[in-house]
């Protein structure tokens, strides 16, 4: 097997290989969909290695055809992946763009069966389930799921009696990113953000619920998603100290990077990958830490819509599209750790081990140490608290 990077450089070769891989996977999926094993003990089936070997002309599948309606973020798919899926399974994927979890939740609540597959973060997934919007899947009946890190198939917050709630995609913790030239001593706590020394030098993303969660962690709330009135009041006080330090709450991530690069801002809260991005934007060296009180982060996955018109195509799509080759390329393009363990091997084999390790790809257990992104229980109270602090 040629190294990944030379293969990837020739798009046609890449497509052919992935078509072959997905064809093999599709066949395997057809074979295993008949019998499902609910127990986590994985069915041995065909070894994952077999699927990534050169395409075997003998096992050309009958393309299924059809259209899959997928509501997702732009970093969950690529043109090459969709082309490969189309070639091997005949499935055309219709992408509806997603910005934030609440948008997806709201839209799915209204359009229901018009969508078949929806992406969502960690604790939003159970909300989708409780609201009757999605169905559980038998994750172990997915051939491609064997490529995942085993802990990804066992998240307790996604495990229900009738199955697993989402097919895992990627994750990232929120880190505090700082410019060591201006920020010292090196911060290790959320409270660094409210240090009056840094007035007007903090940039964060405009996510009211997330900011309330940060405040909850910083002030030691027990359950940051269901803070009591007293805890909310303490969190509000923390935020009142944060407000003068905040330069702006941004709409998009590139604004944070730009502020750090131009040194307008010295501190920010972001997903993985900031130091690299700030550097390539012409900015200084910045460091990223996870605060000692803990942090939030996202673990995202693809959810099967209940009553989706083309629900039968979900499994074939994932079997074809979630293959390690695509995932590895996706990591290179977008830069955050993904749950596909086999893709890590491919990255290592193509000389990208350093990059992958820097992005914590091979430390998936860290993800479970995060408090996960999700909606608040009493959202009215959360937003009211936020508005009272950040209102004009």
């Amino acid at each position, binding site marked *: 097997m040629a190294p990944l990077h030379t293969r990837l450089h020739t798009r046609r070769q890449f497509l052919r290989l992935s078509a072959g891989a997905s064809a093999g996977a599709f066949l395997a999926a057809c074979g295993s969909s008949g019998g499902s094993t609910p127990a986590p003990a994985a069915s041995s089936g065909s070894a994952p290695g077999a699927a990534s070997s050169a395409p075997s002309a003998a096992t050309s599948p009958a393309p299924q055809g059809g259209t899959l*309606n997928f509501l997702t*973020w*732009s*970093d969950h798919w690529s*043109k090459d992946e969709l082309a490969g899926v189309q070639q091997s399974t005949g499935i055309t994927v*219709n*992408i*509806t*763009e*997603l*910005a*934030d979890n609440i*948008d997806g939740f*709201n*839209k799915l*609540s*209204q*359009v229901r069966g*018009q969508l078949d597959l929806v992406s969502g973060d960690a604790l939003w997934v159970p909300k989708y389930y409780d609201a009757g919007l999605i169905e559980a899947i038998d994750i172990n009946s997915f051939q491609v799921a064997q490529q995942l890190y085993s802990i990804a198939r066992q998240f307790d917050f996604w495990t229900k009696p009738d199955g697993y709630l989402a097919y895992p995609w990627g994750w990232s913790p929120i880190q505090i990113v700082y410019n060591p030239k201006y920020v010292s001593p090196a911060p290790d706590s959320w409270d660094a953000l409210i240090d009056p020394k840094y007035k007007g030098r903090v940039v964060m993303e405009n996510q009211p619920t997330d900011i309330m969660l940060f405040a909850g962690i910083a002030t030691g709330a027990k359950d940051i998603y269901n803070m009591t009135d007293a805890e909310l009041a303490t969190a509000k006080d923390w935020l009142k100290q944060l407000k003068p330090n905040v330069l702006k709450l941004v*709409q*998009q*991530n*590139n*604004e*944070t*990077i*730009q502020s750090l*690069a*131009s040194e307008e801002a010295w501190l920010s809260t972001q*997903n993985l990958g900031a130091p690299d*991005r700030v550097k*390539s*934007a*012409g*900015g200084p060296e910045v460091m990223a830490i996870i605060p000692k009180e803990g942090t939030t982060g996202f673990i995202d996955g693809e959810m099967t819509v209940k009553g989706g018109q083309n629900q039968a195509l979900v499994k074939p799509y994932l079997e074809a599209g979630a293959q390690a080759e695509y995932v590895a390329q996706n990591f290179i393009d*977008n830069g955050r750790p993904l749950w596909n363990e086999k893709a890590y091997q491919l990255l290592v084999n193509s000389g990208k081990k350093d990059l992958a390790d820097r992005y914590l790809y091979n430390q998936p257990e860290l993800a479970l140490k995060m408090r996960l992104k999700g909606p608040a229980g009493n959202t009215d109270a959360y937003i009211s608290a936020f508005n009272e602090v950040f209102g004009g």
Partner: protein
Amino acid sequence: MAHAGDRLETMPVSPYAGLVRWLLRGWAAAVLAFTYAPIVLLVLFSFEDSRTIGFPITGFSLRWYEGLPANTPLVRAVATSVTIALVVAVVATLVGTLAAFPLVRAGIRRPNAARVLFTMPIMLPGILIGVGLLVFLAGILKVPLSLLTVIAGHLVLTMPFVVLIVSARLQSFDRRLEWAAADLGADPARTLRYVVLPLIAPAILAGALISVTLSIDEFVVTFFTVGPQLTLPIYIYTQIKFGVTPEVNAVATLVLAGTALVLGLGTLLAMLTRRALRLSRRRAGVKRSEASA
């Protein structure tokens, strides 16, 4: 009735007229500079090398332009946005202009109340209209989300502008012109076509311009009513997790250049046609006078 561009120099003017004209000219230049200052930077950033828009500039490159033809979702998004804007402009202008007439002339008992009804879509935040449309169209009527639902949303937003601007123009329209036309034997249809419409054309044009402007960059309502399609604003705003790159600057620059080119060519064409017409008319006039001589 005198119009702009007439030779008003023959009329008595105030001694400050020259100064005023220069001041106004300077003001107009300043306004245009104000309008285009950010555009200069917008174009500049489209050539910057780094993935992040803005200062500092690490270097210059054409890579964002080079990547455009391959980026089919982006190209399709631009095409979709333009198509929607044109459809919305045509429909909103038609429907809005149609509504402006009875609003002003039908002798409604409470014209201001009627005008307020038409203004209401402007009064509510787009996000509320978006949510309402999503719940009504998709949740209740089970209409599949598509470009049609997007156009519907844009129509609601742009129609009030057309109605208001055309009715304002109609309000101060000199009715005596229509009466004169009637006196000369024109029926209502001809009067409408040859007297009223040409004179309110600037308002209709302004309404159409506003519709295109509002629609082409509309994000909030579009976001709720769009299906698996992309418009340019949707493409841009859904890059939220990882941010936009200067490719959007490149697209914006090309759209600007393209539109300017089309307008420039259109004006040139109009100028040439007018000159050709004038020449042919002059020649025809000479022939006629020769014939009658």
